[in-house]
């Protein structure tokens, strides 16, 4: 009888822990993920010129690594080749006109500004 109670109790605890971990699971950590695609900024833009919706679906929500030249930078952002806009969770420093590889999550193609947008970026090299 006592054993049964212990068994039920431990099952409940295990179940509770599993449920808690499911409900309060961690967010994706883009900086720790392996990139699904590695591409140069030039080729990424070429893909979009060819077919916007196909390319957008291909990359949407994926972690990608983009290599390109820094054409603009802000407090929390870097623009590669005037066409890939990357935002960082922390403030970042980078030198204009240098080549860089950035890892981030693709969130969409901005057709107002004709730019690709990545968030949660980190600098690779």
């Amino acid at each position: 009888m006592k054993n049964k109670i212990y068994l039920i109790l431990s099952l409940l605890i295990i179940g509770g822990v599993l449920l808690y971990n499911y409900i309060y699971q961690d967010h994706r950590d883009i900086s720790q993920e392996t990139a699904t695609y590695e591409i140069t900024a030039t080729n990424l833009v070429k893909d979009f010129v060819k077919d916007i919706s196909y390319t957008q679906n291909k990359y949407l929500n994926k972690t990608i690594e983009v290599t390109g030249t820094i054409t603009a930078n802000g407090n929390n952002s870097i623009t590669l080749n005037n066409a890939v806009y990357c935002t960082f969770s922390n403030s970042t420093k980078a030198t204009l006109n240098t080549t860089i590889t950035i890892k981030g999550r693709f969130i969409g193609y901005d057709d107002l500004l004709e730019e690709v947008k990545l968030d949660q970026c980190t600098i690779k090299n």
Partner: protein
Amino acid sequence: MKNLTTLSLTLLISVLVFAQDKYLTKIGTINLEASVPSFEEVKATNEATTFILNTANGEFAALVFVKAFRFKNALMEEHFNENYAESDTYPKANFKGKLIDFDLNKLSDNQETLNYTGTLEFHGKIKTLEKLPITISKNDTDQIILTGTFEVSVDDFDIDIPKVVSNKLSKTVVVTFNFNLSKKQ
């Protein structure tokens, strides 16, 4: 017909992008809240919205990346994307319209309230927003600051809330936005 729509849309976008007198941001903030008191808050923030204001006529266009809404709770974020916003199918929301009686020269440090009329496209459905208030000001670094809030119903966008969670989730979603626009270089 579809081609015509695409063409006119492309033309419209090119006009929006290439015309002069543009103020814009690429990191506009939008908050969504559908919390019910005494339950876990249902709240998300998006800091990747592109917003462009044409200061010649007060027309604006915003592009919201649905995947960029971040929730405190990762599971909630997953459910939002998969079951409600269906962001794989509808990765973008559009918000466009016109500020009524907008005049760039009248803007100052003091917050002023204008009205705007516009449309909001989300989850493949379009809702018209009529004469809603928006707060506008311009600071000494030549930034235009726009803030506002409005409410929408999930029914307007054809989003079903399952019975199981219906008491923890408000059908009315409060949308708050904040855009700091800089002049386009």
